[in-house]
C-alpha cells in the first residue's frame, strides 16, 4: 500500500489556519477536537474502533513515566505512543462553543 498517497490519509484534508497542531503538542487538561488521522488504514483501525474518530474530543490527562500521552476520549482512558499522538491532527475548541 502506498503510504505517501493522499488517499491513504484518513479524514478531511482541510488545513487549519495558522499551521497544524498535533495531539503530541497539546498540554495536559486541554480538550481538543480530532481533525485527521495521518495513518494508513491498517494503523488507524485500532484508533477508530476505540472511538478516536475525526470530530471526537480528546483530552490529554497525564504523561506516562516514559513521556507517552494518556488521553481521555468519551470517558475511556487510552494510552498512546508519542509517535501515534504525532499522527493525530487536532484543533483547539473555540471559546464560543
Amino acid at each position: 500500500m502506498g503510504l505517501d498517497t493522499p488517499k491513504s490519509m484518513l479524514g478531511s484534508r482541510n488545513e487549519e489556519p495558522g499551521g497544524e497542531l498535533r495531539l503530541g503538542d497539546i498540554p495536559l487538561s486541554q480538550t481538543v477536537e480530532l481533525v485527521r488521522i495521518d495513518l494508513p488504514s491498517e494503523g488507524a483501525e485500532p484508533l477508530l474502533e476505540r472511538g478516536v474518530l475525526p470530530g471526537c474530543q480528546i483530552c490529554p490527562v497525564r504523561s506516562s513515566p516514559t513521556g507517552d500521552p494518556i488521553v481521555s476520549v468519551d470517558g475511556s482512558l487510552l494510552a498512546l505512543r508519542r509517535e501515534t499522538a504525532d499522527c493525530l491532527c487536532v484543533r483547539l475548541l473555540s471559546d464560543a462553543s
Partner: protein
Amino acid sequence: MRDLSTKAGDATLTSTQVENESRSPLIALIGPPNSGKTTLFNRLTGLRQKVANYPGVTVEKYVGQVQCDSERNVELVDLPGVHGFSARTLDEQVTRDVLEGQVEDLPAPDAVVLIVDCTRLESQLMLVEPVLKLEIPTLLVLNMWDELEERGGSLNELELADLLGVEVVKTNARVGLGVEGVKEFLSQVEVRESGVPLPEHVLSNVPRGVPLPMIDAFTARRRHLDKVVDRASFVSPGPAESTNALDSVFLHRTWGPLVFLAVVVVVFQSIFTWAVPLMDGVDLLITTSGEWLASRLSDGWFRSLVIDGVWAGVGSVIIFLPQILILFLFLGILEDSGYMARAAVIADRVMYRVGLQGRAFLPLLSGYACAIPAILAARTVEDERDRLATIFITPFMTCSARLPVYALLIAAFIPEGRLLGPFLGYRAAVLLGLYGLGIAAAVVTAFLLKRTLLRAQPGSFVMDLPSYRLPSARSIGLRLLDRSKIFLRRAGSIIFAVTIVLWVLTQFPRTDAGPPPIEDSALGRIGQTIEPAIEPLGFDWRIGVGLVTSLAAREVIVGTLGTIYGVEDATDDSITLQETLRRDLTLPAAIGLLVFFAFALQCMSTVAVMRRETGGWKWPILQFSYMLFLAYSGAFIAVQIF
C-alpha cells in the same frame, strides 16, 4: 412447544434438522475487552462450563450451561473481547466466525447478548450496529450501572432500548446485580428455525485496505450512535476519582517504574520461592503413591512400565502444577485489577526499542513459567507482526522446565564459593547468567526479525486503560480451575504417550535375560547414532539420548540420565547422579550443556502450539532450526572458552 408427531412421521428430515430439533438454544456472549463479559459469563454458568479450543486455532472456546427457570437449559458461549469485527486479530476472526455460524461443531447462535461498560457508552456501542445486522434476538447488557450512577451519570435505558430495537438490562455483574434479568432473556430464546439462511459475512462489511470507505463507515456509525445516545438522555459520568488517584502513583514518573519492578520481583519470588513447598508436597505425593503402587504390582514388565515409565514421566511434569497455578493467580489479580494495562504502558518504550510493544509484556512474563500459556496470551498483541515476533522469542524466556536441568548441572559442576561477598555465590551467578543469556537472545532475535521477516509499516499504538477494580475471587478461582484442567490434560496425553514410547525403546531388543543393557537398547543406539554430531560439544551418547528424550519436554533429560546411569550402575546405588555426571562430563562440556538448554527449543508442545497459532509449519520449523543453531553454536563456543 414443537409438534413432535410430524417429526416422527417425516422420513425426509435431514440430519441438521434433527439436530436443530434436539439441541438447546445457543446464545453468544460478546462485548469489548474489560466490559465485564467473562464476569457475567461466570455468574451465569458457574461450574457448568467447559473449555476447549476452536477447531484449527488455539483460541479458547468457553461454553457453559445456564439453568433458566422451568427446567430449561440454554448453552452460552463466551466469545473473546473485541472492539470490532474486522478480523485484524485472531480473537476478532473467531468472534466473527462464531456469530456468522462458520465454526465447525457450533451452530450459528440463536441470540446474542452484547455487554457494554455503560460508563463509556458511546465508544462501547460501536459493536451494536454490526450485531443488529445479524437479525437475531439481541440483549444489550448495560454493565457497571452502579458506577455510572456513582459518578453522576445517567441514561434512560428504556428509550435506548426503543431506539436500538433491542432488549436492555442494567447490571453490575461483579456483585451479581441484574443477572436475573439476563436469565429471563435467555429463558425466552428459541432455537432458530432450520432452513433460514445464515447471515453470511454481514459483519465484515467494512472493507479492508480501502481507506476512505472504512473511515466513512466508522464515522457514519458513530454519528448515528451519538444521536441515539443523545435522545436516550445519556449523561456522561464524571471522572473516575479512584482510578485517577491510583494512576497518579502507578503511572508516576518515579513511583510508576518502582512499583513495576516490585511487581515483577514479587511474581518471580512467588514462582521460584513460594511455590517450592507446594512442589515438594506434590513430589512427595507422586513418590509415595508410586511406591504404594509398586508394592501392589508384581515384579515384571508391567510394573516397570507403570512405575518407571508412566509414574516417573508424568509425575516429573505434574510437579510444575503449583508453579503454574501461582503464576496464573498473580497474573489473574494483575489483569482483573487493571494494573496489567499500566505495566504494559510502562514496558512499552523498552519493548518498542527492541521492535515489540507493551502488550508483549504479559506473554513474555508468563514465559518464565511455561511458553505454552504465554504463546496463547500473545493473542492480545493486536499487530500480527508484533504477535509473531513475540511468540517467536517467548521460548527464550527461562521457563520452569529448564530449572531442573539447570539445578542438576549447577549443583554437580559449579562450586559453592562466593563471588560478590555475601550477596552472590557462583551458583546463583551462573543461574542469573543463564536467565540473562535467554533475554539477550530474545532481544537480538526480536531486533533481527523486525528488521527482516517481520518488517512493519509505521503503525499505531493505542491501549485501553480500564478503571481499577477489585478482582473477584470467583472469577480468578474459575480460571485457575481451567488452567489446572488444561495442564493436566496435556500431562495426561502428550507426556503420557512420550514416556511410554521412551520406556518401550529402553526395553527392546529383548535379550534372554530380559531388557537389554541400556547401550544396546533401541534408545542407546539412537544416542550412539547422533554421538558424532555432538562430540565437538564434549557430549557422549548418554547425553545424546537425554537430548533426544528432552525433545518431548526439557526436564525429561533429568529422568532419562537417571534411568541410563541407574541402569548402568545398578550394582552400586550409592553413586548419585551428580557424581556420575562429574565423572563423565568435563566442566566445559557441562557449561556447554547449560548453554545448549538456554537456547534450544526442546519442547514438542511448544512446537505444536506454534503450528496452531501461526496456521502452518513455516514458523515452528524456522523457530526450531534457529534455536537449535543458536544452541549448538553457543555450546560449541562455550566449550572452546572454558
